[in-house]
């Protein structure tokens, strides 16, 4: 198994000819497997892509790639949303791949009605209604879905992003957005396995809708 440094991973679920596009993009260097289903690739660039102040030399940026059991379904993560968008654009995936819709709104309401072995430690939501002067709210805690204050506000909210906390281990796993956005702290195989479990949970509960083909836009 390959080892690469820990980093806060940002990316997106996506469907499309990902393997073909990445295999044929000549500036990508495969780094090997990290854990079952997960591999790493490095993007070589002549110019700095992450705001580095060093003007000369070549730059390497690591990415995590997770293959789903379903062919053509992937998760691609990098050090920042901009880097992922750059890779997608350079490898032509931005025009040929799409992101699924994740039913975060339904998921939050389900968590309120019947808690699971995950809790929500962050919820980001838009305020329902037209021309609201208050447009969004964010909640942070150890188990937001069980908090009375949150429940009272929920009818007026449309959650679009949540962070999962694994109750058994007491660790924060990562966050998922309604347009397939994913964030987690990559720190080795264990963090990848925990993220796998969250994605499997979302898949098993039918929250990921691959029929809704959304344009990938992590810069929103």
């Amino acid at each position, binding site marked *: 198994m390959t080892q690469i440094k820990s980093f806060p991973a940002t990316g997106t679920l996506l469907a499309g000819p990902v393997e073909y596009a990445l295999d044929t993009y000549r500036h990508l260097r495969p780094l090997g497997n990290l854990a079952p289903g997960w591999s790493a690739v490095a993007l070589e660039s002549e110019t700095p892509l992450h705001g580095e102040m060093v003007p000369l030399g070549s730059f390497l940026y690591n990415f995590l790639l997770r293959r789903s059991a379903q062919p053509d379904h992937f998760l691609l993560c990098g050090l920042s949303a901009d880097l992922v968008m750059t890779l997608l654009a350079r490898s032509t995936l931005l025009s040929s791949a799409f992101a699924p819709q994740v039913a975060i709104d339904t998921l939050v309401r389900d968590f309120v*009605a*019947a*808690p*699971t*072995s995950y809790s929500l430690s962050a919820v980001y939501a838009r305020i329902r209604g037209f021309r609201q002067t208050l447009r969004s709210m964010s909640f942070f805690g*150890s*188990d937001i879905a*069980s*908090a*009375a*204050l949150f*429940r009272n506000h929920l009818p007026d909210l449309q959650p679009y992003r949540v962070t999962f906390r694994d*109750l*058994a*281990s*007491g660790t924060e796993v990562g966050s998922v957005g309604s347009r397939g956005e994913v964030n987690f702290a990559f720190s080795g195989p264990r963090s990848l396995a925990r993220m796998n479990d969250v994605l499997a949970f979302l898949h098993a509960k039918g929250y990921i809708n691959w029929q809704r083909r959304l344009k990938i836009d992590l810069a929103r």
Partner: protein
Amino acid sequence: MRQLAVQTDSPWEEWSLLGAAITRVRISPRRIYRRPRRPAAQRLPDEPQTRDSVREYRCLMQSSRARASSQSLFFLEALDRFDLRFRDLILSPRVDLSNRHRLLVNANAALSRQSSQTYAGTSPIFETECHYWTHSLLGIGLASLALSKIRAFLDSQVRRANIIDRLLALSTFPAQPGRLENLRANDVFWSQDFLKGHEHTPPPQPIPESNVLPLVTCFSGRDGFRSTDVSLSLPLETISSSNTQVWTLLTMTHEYAHNIIGAILGKLLPSTLAESEEVLAMQKEGAFPDLFQQLRALLCFALWRFSPESRHAIQNGEHILGLIAANLHPASEVLTHCFDFLYFYEGDVDAYIRSVWASWGVIPNIQRRIRDYLLRCLSAIHTQNIARSPSGANLSITQLLTSLNAVSATLDNSPYIADAVNLLENDRPQIEEELEKRELLVKIARYVIYSPTVARLLEGSATATAGTRFAGQRSLEFSPERIDPPLIFAADYSRDTLASFARSMWILTQIAFRADTE
């Protein structure tokens, strides 16, 4: 020095020495605090079985009052309130002779300790003594004052929340159709805030200070952390080591919670044969006149479910009273752990497990009680998982295991944790079954006794926010700033591994003189 003492209105004592011999002692004029005339108190009982205890109580109370009247208005007021409420308590028709005797004995023990510990070392020094012999000259009045200040702070929080009136107000709510024990934990019925009260009626007023019996606080090497109906004691080690996780003052919240749960159970459980017959009839019919009665019936059912004889049907009202008497103590422990965890530790599993296992780690020979302690902790953790699927119980056990392993790595002295982990790992199905027997009690603690409204009122007692509030105050420096709330201050500065007399006394001094009790 004498001039400074006079200027600051401080009592003083001046010793003239010839070599090592004290040749002359001069003391400052005695200051006397006066209190307004006290309301007429009930006469203490005159019965052969309690006569000696009553005599001792009179002497101890008068002696304590006399000492407090020249030293501390704070203690004097507390003693007067204690005396008034204590007389009401022991003369209540609900208290029988043996319980009256028990209450008197407990009050006398606590008063005697408090008085000797608080006033040893006060002028005239030669006329006082302290039962804590290493401090027999100058005493531990400062530590005693700190302890009493925390008690007063907790009292003020609990008076403001007025849980009992909120509970009694449930008799004005209609009952839920059917039996509550059959309702799943994620039924919408349980999502209401039972102690919030009616939407359009004013909330219960805070309990007047004069209506509350202030527990007599003291230190005790024998009793350690312990509460009774009239007293609250902390181990002597707290004085020299309150800066450590093991001897932290925070453990007081657990002892204090015992009294709150005692008061709740006193209202909610039937106490007479007629009341228990009513419960039986309601259970048989499945019809309840109001929500309070329905919850009373649920609690009785929970006690039966928890009891070892739960395979046999309840026969009559007397049987219910018998079940209550036999299971009250262990059930009360379960509810107290849940209360402490939810309100004072704000559901922080790791902080709670670290705190309770650190304090159990110094109690000798408790191997046989480990299973019981595990089940109390599990019950507390399970309050957060009871509605989870597929298996909340399984998750609670996993969380406890994870937390125990983490705590064991950070605590120096944790002799029982390895046994506890072994027990959890090797006897998991049996533990899960025993947790299931406590599930109704956990449900009552989580959905009835825990209320977000009350939690807001008890906010100053919750310690999960510790670590940030007093971040600017440096240890061992005496700042004139008020300490509000004192429990969070204690939590912030009791994270050391090694005991330090100086740091411990600094914590106690700050609380004694700078803590807000409201």
